[in-house]
């Protein structure tokens, strides 16, 4: 069962030997940095709230972009065949790729730790929501990576994979903000489906089992869906 770590290692290496990782990280930092600091001094509050408020929206584009190549590239190039003829199980492959995508997402977040550190010098920073926010960001990143992995498995085309993945993630992010369009009877369900809703809970520093269960179930469902898609490719 150590096999998945080899797959993960290779996928991570792939991110960093090609320009992908650096480009994605740079774009992510510019976008978040701009949105965050452009209003930061206006509000004059020592917290990261506006950073974490924006994060789901930014992640719903950036994370599928990270995940889009994981399967689509192998499928279009044919190297998927090599992968499947080596002694690897489906779970080795899926788990390895998922963790690589998640670690890459985590690598995006690492440089942003400079924000809370610099803010801590400017004012009284409450570290609780910050830690909660980063923890939530990892869960959110995990859920979106799993969705991106799924959409990457259904097509040979990376662009299609990105669009499908981003569309799903974007919907999950926005759905809890669009509730006034829907009849009252489905409001609770739709709100529960919203990734943004659960993430905002955690990023306030409240760790609730319902939010954890939400993120873990999205990950499990998406990874299982990936497995089912791959099973069809025989």
């Amino acid at each position, binding site marked *: 069962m150590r096999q998945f770590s080899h797959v993960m290692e290779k996928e991570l290496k792939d991110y960093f030997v090609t320009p992908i990782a650096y480009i994605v990280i740079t774009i992510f930092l510019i976008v978040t940095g701009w949105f965050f600091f452009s209003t930061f001094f206006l509000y004059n509050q020592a917290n990261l709230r506006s950073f974490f408020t924006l994060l789901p929206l930014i992640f719903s584009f950036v994370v599928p972009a990270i995940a889009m190549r994981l399967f689509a590239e192998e499928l279009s190039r044919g190297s998927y065949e090599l992968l*499947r*003829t080596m002694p690897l199980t489906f779970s080795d492959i899926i788990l390895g790729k998922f963790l690589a995508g998640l670690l890459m997402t985590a690598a995006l977040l690492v440089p942003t730790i400079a924000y809370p550190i610099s803010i801590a010098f400017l004012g009284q920073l409450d570290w609780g929501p910050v830690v909660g926010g980063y923890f939530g960001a990892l869960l959110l990143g995990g859920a979106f990576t799993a969705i991106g992995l799924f959409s990457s498995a259904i097509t040979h085309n990376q662009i299609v994979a990105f669009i499908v993945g981003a569309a799903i993630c974007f919907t999950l992010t926005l759905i809890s903000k669009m509730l006034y369009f829907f009849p009252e009877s489905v409001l609770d369900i739709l709100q529960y489906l919203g990734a943004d809703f659960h993430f905002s809970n955690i990023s306030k520093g409240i760790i609730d089992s319902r939010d954890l269960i939400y993120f873990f179930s999205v990950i499990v469902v998406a990874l299982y869906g990936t497995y089912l898609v791959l099973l069809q490719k025989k």
Partner: protein
Amino acid sequence: MIHVDNLTKFYDHFCAVDRISLDIHKGEILGLLGPNGAGKTTTLKMLTGYFRPSSGTIEIEDLNIDDHPLEIKQMIGYLPESSPFYKDLLVYDYLNYVAKIRSIPPRERQPRVKDLSELCGLGHVMHKSIGELSKGLNQRVGLAHAMMRDPEILILDEPTQGLDPNQIMEIRNIIRKIGEEKTVIFSTHILSEAEATCDRIVIINRGRIVADGKTEILKQSAGQPSITINLTLANAAFDDVRKVLKPIEGIEAIESVHPQPDETGHDGSKTDARLFLRLTCRSDADRREAIYQQIKATDWILLEFSQQAQTLETIFHDLTRQANKEN
């Protein structure tokens, strides 16, 4: 060692492989031969466990491929048709990665990768990324990939495709070397290649096996109904020759063939006296002795006497054409 029973594969309604049954023994080099689209690649992909058969079973070392996919994948080294690799990785990194997945212990990885790079002639490109390599070098990376864990079974899909003649020779030598101990199955549509490398040839056409046997036996048995003998005589007239040779039993036709223009030689006068003949004999017995005895009794000068060899080319051609006609 490998037991294939009634293997069938449908792509939607198209039947790519139709009830193939095969027994492959340890240490055999088996060439899977057939025209394009005959089902070679599909068969190989099913053997590696990449495709699932529509029906039929594959057993390798008494393990069913459905029940023990991992054990079987450990045993098999596979080179796919177009050697699709991760273009961004260095050759060294890639081979290292394969070594890890093939569970080669950390200490042995380095020496193993080094051995393979020597065997496959990759030493000078280990630090290049795979995308930069030529087709031939790519193919060698594939071969190194396939042989990483010294597999019991090596499955190669058109291993010499796109290589130059020197590289083809090298790859053939490697295959033959491995085939001394291991089982090698490879597909090709180049007949001379199969002839040069294989112990056994299986010809498939339209998803079915049309011939299966040792290379030598195939060449003898699957023959045409007649044998052609070429004769070149000097100091002889065609009519005389016909009179002398015709009585020999089994000779069906004697024709005079005009020499090719470029065979006329430098002094045209001499060749005028030569007689080029083609004899068609029934293939039930060897007539060469009788023919020679007859010629010896005359004062003709025998310049050339050869039996047209039955090549795999003709066998292949006949078999695949026959099958196509029947359908």
